[in-house]
């Protein structure tokens, strides 16, 4: 989508008046829909729809050997797949750049042990650990991918059931694990998992949750990922540059909104009920 100058001016004026093109205020989000447990054969899954943006996340767990330099830690890997369903530009390997950007940002955001403790995924020091694959499928892009993906990932990890280890048999170099049934599992602790907020600078003001048109009008945006009360990663995207005071304003706004978003996510997750018609048939 490309906008002409007049359209851009219209969007810009809307932001100035605190009345954006879809009637929102500068700090408002578009409506969101969240479903969990949508992929039946995954260990955990979630689907988030943020207006037109549609993200499906599934978590798979495998037993793996830990890295030799970090024998006490499990592994966490993010894989983003940009489906061509979202836009024909993603056909073939077209979506790879976007995919790598998102997955790298996610790994950076989950990097700190204060944010997500990989030590809990260790089964046997230096020998066995859990490896968590978080697979993200972008089904539709309606702007603001980072926020949608981070929320969906957090929800999917919250939904994830890690099997319990019942028994470990060590016979020389062979390690055999006896794993509990799927009905008897423990959940991952994701209280501190980060939530990302994209703060977009349009004209003199900063907005959150830009749609595609607003993303076009902005020269620079900042993706902040907040875990509890700390920043776990900050990344500048877009082509423009910002003054340092603007940057700090963006960080403050992102921080405030992220807290609100995180609270909203938790209250939603606690209210989620298993329903009959989940998924795309609704």
């Amino acid at each position, binding site marked *: 989508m490309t906008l002409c100058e007049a359209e851009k001016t219209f969007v810009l004026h809307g932001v100035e008046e605190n009345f954006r093109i879809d009637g929102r205020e500068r700090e408002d989000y578009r409506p969101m829909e969240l479903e969990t447990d949508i*992929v*039946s*054969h995954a260990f955990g899954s979630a689907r988030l729809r943020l207006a037109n943006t549609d993200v499906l996340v599934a978590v798979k767990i495998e037993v793996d050997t830990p890295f030799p330099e970090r024998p006490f830690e499990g592994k966490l890997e993010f894989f983003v797949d940009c489906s061509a*369903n979202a836009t*024909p530009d993603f056909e073939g390997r077209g979506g790879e750049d976007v995919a790598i950007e998102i997955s790298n940002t996610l790994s950076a955001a989950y990097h700190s042990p204060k944010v997500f403790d990989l030590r809990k995924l260790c089964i046997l020091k230096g020998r066995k650990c859990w490896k968590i694959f978080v697979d993200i499928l972008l089904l539709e892009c309606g702007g603001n991918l980072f926020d949608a993906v981070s929320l969906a990932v957090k929800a999917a990890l919250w939904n994830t059931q890690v099997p319990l280890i019942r028994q470990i048999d060590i016979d020389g170099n062979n390690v055999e694990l006896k794993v509990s049934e799927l009905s008897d599992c423990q959940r991952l602790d994701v209280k501190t998992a980060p939530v990302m907020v994209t703060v977009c600078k349009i004209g003199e003001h900063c907005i959150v949750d830009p749609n595609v048109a607003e993303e076009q009008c902005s020269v620079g945006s900042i993706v902040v990922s907040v875990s509890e009360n700390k920043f776990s990663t900050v990344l500048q995207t877009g082509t423009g540059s910002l003054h340092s005071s603007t940057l700090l304003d963006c960080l403050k706004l992102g921080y405030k909104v992220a807290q609100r978003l995180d609270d909203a996510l938790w209250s939603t997750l606690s209210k989620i009920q298993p329903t009959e018609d989940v998924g*795309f*048939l609704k």
Partner: protein
Amino acid sequence: MSTNKELISKIGLRLDGRRANELRRIRCKLGVFTQPDGSAYLEQGLTKVLAAVYGPHQVRGGRSKAQHDNAIVNCQFSMAVFSTNERKRRPRGDRKSTELSMHLQQALLSVIKTELYPWSQIDVYVEVLHADGGIYPACVNASTLALIDAGIPIKEYVCACTASLANNDTPMLDISHQEEIIGGPTLTVAALPMSGKIVLMEMSQRFHLDHLKKVLEKALKGCRDVKQILDEAVRLHVRDVGSSTGWAGTG
């Protein structure tokens, strides 16, 4: 291969409790996304497929591919990495997905009235969310729905179905993943059920030529049944859309 496990029990029930001539439950929905020109979601048993159609639009990537009398149909088949029990490493680009993309294109070319759109291109993208046997038929059926949702003129429905031969004499319909791995031949047929034409037929493993007729007959019957279900879904969708707009523009 374990042949001792029977595909059909003595009382005529299959592993998942179906009878030999029963399809798995098909549920579908048209217009699940707003950005593509047409989209559809289809569930066949546990197999879940999303299809999106973009176009007809100008040919992308160099005009050399464009044809002066036809539209080109471009298909991409891709499987989510979590769609199978074992996590896949890559969603697309392997041999199997390339082959399926080509077969899908072949099936769709037979029904789309491409001569109406010279110099243009139609993109069909399918994404498998859960693979549980019969991926190709599910993709064909979902693409048909997505094409209808996009309003692209087609000659008739193109439907696909699988059939197999159990215990060397009973043909059975719509093979699930479990039945696929236990063994037995699988015959995949994509057909135009109204005119009774076959556009694609593929078979793995072998059975005696004498059985081909009845297995094929069974698969075609499956295609006709699928068509019934799809047709019903389309009518329901059109009625919903139409009545919500007060049948505006229908004169």
